[in-house]
């Protein structure tokens, strides 16, 4: 269970961003979680429910977008989605591949309210 420590990081990123931009209340937190990321979406949701309460994201909805695994062969350049976790190029058989997507564990964006009543409405541009 490391979702709690990841959630701590998430909330501090959201907090920093929202306050930094003097934004209104955070409505949506959009996360990208790769198919191959070692993190459990349900545990993240649970951690969010418990931990967001006292944060700038207290009223926000957590959205989790699953990102499929995709890889690129650095030998022949072909990009593809492997079936299962086979990291061998389907075109040329090379094992010199890089993972393009599927390892994500990132805060993609947040949506903040344009309505008044933000953390610090006066600070908005």
């Amino acid at each position, binding site marked *: 269970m490391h979702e709690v420590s990841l959630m701590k990081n998430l909330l501090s990123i959201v907090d920093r961003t929202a306050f930094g931009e003097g*934004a209104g209340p955070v409505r949506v937190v959009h996360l990208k979680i790769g198919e191959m990321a070692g993190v459990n979406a349900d545990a993240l949701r649970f951690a969010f429910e418990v931990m967001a309460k006292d944060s700038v994201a207290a009223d926000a909805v957590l959205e989790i977008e699953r990102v499929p695994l995709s890889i690129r062969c650095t030998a022949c350049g072909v990009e593809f989605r492997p079936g299962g976790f086979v990291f061998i190029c389907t075109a040329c058989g090379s094992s010199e591949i890089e993972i393009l997507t599927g390892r994500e564990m990132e805060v993609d964006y947040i949506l903040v309210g344009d309505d008044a009543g933000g953390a610090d409405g006066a600070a908005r541009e």
Partner: protein
Amino acid sequence: MQGEQTAPRGNNTGRELMHEIRIGEDLREKNEAIAEENRKLLAAHGIVTLNVMSAPGAGKTSLLVRTIPVLMKRYTIGVIEGDIQTTTDAERIAALGVPAYQIETGGVCHLDAAMVHSAIHHLDLDSIDLLFIENVGNLVCPAEFDLGEDARVMLLSVSEGDDKPNKYPLMFRESRLLLLNKIDLLPYVSFDVAKARRDAREINPRLDIIELSSTTGAGFELWIAWIDEFVASARRR
């Protein structure tokens, strides 16, 4: 707590009243920054570091207990032990006469770079040239957390089953060496060594694989030779 604050996903009501702030920041970024610091610090002291990972009971501590006495002739060794609770593993290592520092994670399922960072400062870095970090027994979470090691070594004991590569691909993908441990038990368990090797190599074609047993010592000469070669190549860098 049930039923609270769970607006349905994709509920776009009022989305037009919101504006988007792009972030694109990885939740592991903070860990990675500290891991990089660890890596620099260890390299500055000429220390080669191996992060040893496996499921609980795969034999990490027993492996080290059998390995360290052989290596002590040519390296000065240090060990950082990660455990959720208890200090028994560190005591087993300390009994060999090498410095062992225990991290009790207090419920956390893996070591992270910050824990290792504070542990490093409890070791006399000038007198160590090979550092083993024994991670918390777990095949999932430790794979996501760079500690600042030079390489990751994972153990899979044959009693765990040959389906593990496909179930826990990230761990196999991130490791440099796979030790198939407890091969003395092969007559008693249905573990297809060829299948496990094949599946692991599909996930990580560059993975080195050694079969061994910490009980009988079978395969240890290969494992020791691997360490010697790895340390030599790390020192050339």
